[in-house]
């Protein structure tokens, strides 16, 4: 079944006709040539396809495009303000939060979403007091980012970047 959909990606409205089987990830990469979200596992296990969907981080490989007609999507490529990098992006650069860079757009979108969740007071699996304030120490950052795998093992520097990102 072919269906017309319209989504906004990084501020630009994009219309297309898609097969209902198309995931949001494939719609972006194969139909719109938006290459920032990466396909790692295609099964929700690695986080490299993470985008912000209506402001919340999700994996785009398990989202059907047809189910998100009308959605507002932000990829890592859409986070910068002109030539000015988003603070989380800048922190990844400053702290060497990557090696090959394949997982990085997903890490960055995930981090931006994660920081919003923490700001809203959402606890995590490692939060001792479920009703207390959130202190994003390293254990919290690692737990909250566990949905993003890095095959290069840049985790130590990713945590360092996020420590910086949380300070700003």
């Amino acid at each position: 079944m072919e269906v017309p959909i319209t989504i906004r990606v990084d501020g630009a409205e994009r219309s297309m006709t898609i097969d209902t089987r198309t995931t949001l990830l494939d719609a972006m990469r194969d139909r719109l040539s938006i290459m920032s979200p990466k396909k790692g596992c295609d099964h929700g296990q690695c986080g490299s396809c993470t985008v912000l969907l209506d402001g919340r981080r999700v994996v785009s490989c398990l989202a059907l495009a047809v189910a998100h007609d009308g959605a507002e999507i932000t990829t890592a490529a859409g986070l910068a303000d002109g030539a000015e990098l988003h603070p989380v992006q800048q922190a990844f650069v400053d702290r060497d939060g990557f090696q090959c860079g394949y997982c990085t757009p997903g890490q960055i979108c995930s981090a931006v979403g994660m920081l919003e969740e923490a700001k809203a007071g959402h606890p995590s699996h490692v939060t001792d007091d479920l009703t207390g304030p959130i202190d994003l120490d390293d254990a919290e950052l690692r737990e909250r980012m566990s949905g993003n795998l890095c095959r290069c093992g840049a985790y130590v520097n990713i945590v360092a970047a996020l420590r910086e990102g949380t300070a700003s």
Partner: protein
Amino acid sequence: MIPFDYRRAQDPADAVTAVAERPGAAFLAGGTNLVDHLKLGVTAPDLLVDVSRLPLDGVESLPGGGLRIGAAVRNSDLAAHPVVRERYPMLSRALLSGASGQLRNAATTAGNLLQRTRCVYFQDVTTPCNKRDPGSGCSAIGGYTRYHAILGASEHCIAVHPSDMAVAMRALDADVIVLSQDGERRVPLADLHRLPGDAPHRDTVLDHADLITAVELPALPMARRSTYRKVRDRASYAFALVSVAAALELDDGMVGDVRLALGGVAHKPWRASTAEEHLRGAPATVETFRRAADAELAAAQPQPGNEFKVRMARNTIVAVLRELAGAHGMGGEHR
């Protein structure tokens, strides 16, 4: 993936009708399990009826002190809900121990309850599996059993239900509200999931066009002191080998009341009723906790390769009860 039609349901009744009319139709919520299965070929519906946007996304307090959770409430929102954090911490903790931040933002209450087993053979269409392909055999028996059942399994299937949330809801005696063409009915969560028996292809008692609209938690004041512990192969982002949801109420050094359920050990969230019986009215000591856990696990029938889970379950039950008793200043080694 075979082609399928897609339709956004207008309201719950419309969703039920649309699925009832097509034997090959399925409800779609967050898609984090279903879309995976479409890709793997585990299931091949010819129509997806999207229920993720139905107005079933509220969390409301009930007059008697309970809580009604809409079927489309996202797992992350439920875990962070102030009432859940305060009154049902085991549910918050169970949700937060599952999947990842990204997945919890998409996954829904109903989808979580109805997610299917992570048995590797079930997910691999090249291998026999009675659950996926009835009568084809069970590849797990005599195979890789680390993530398989030690309680309530059958010679036809030894899979476990993978949900963390459901284990907490089982301990909390939740009810599931189901809409069908015959109207609305209430299914105790205790009866929702089945043991495999000779029909492992049926995970639950639900029929084809049964739509879950909500889950209701009873008021359970003792649940304020409750927790969820999950033992797994890595510290985060992994399914449970064994998990324990528990609430404990002490009365002058004795166990007043207790709720105990296990995950990762059976085809359904496993309520440890035998252990609960041993605990009620007994002194809140490590000895009691051990005896209760042993009594529950006396029925365990592990597979070659997962014998370790019996001990793991026992130790986790004891550790969780000690933790909860410790919060009351009880349950120490010397009492």
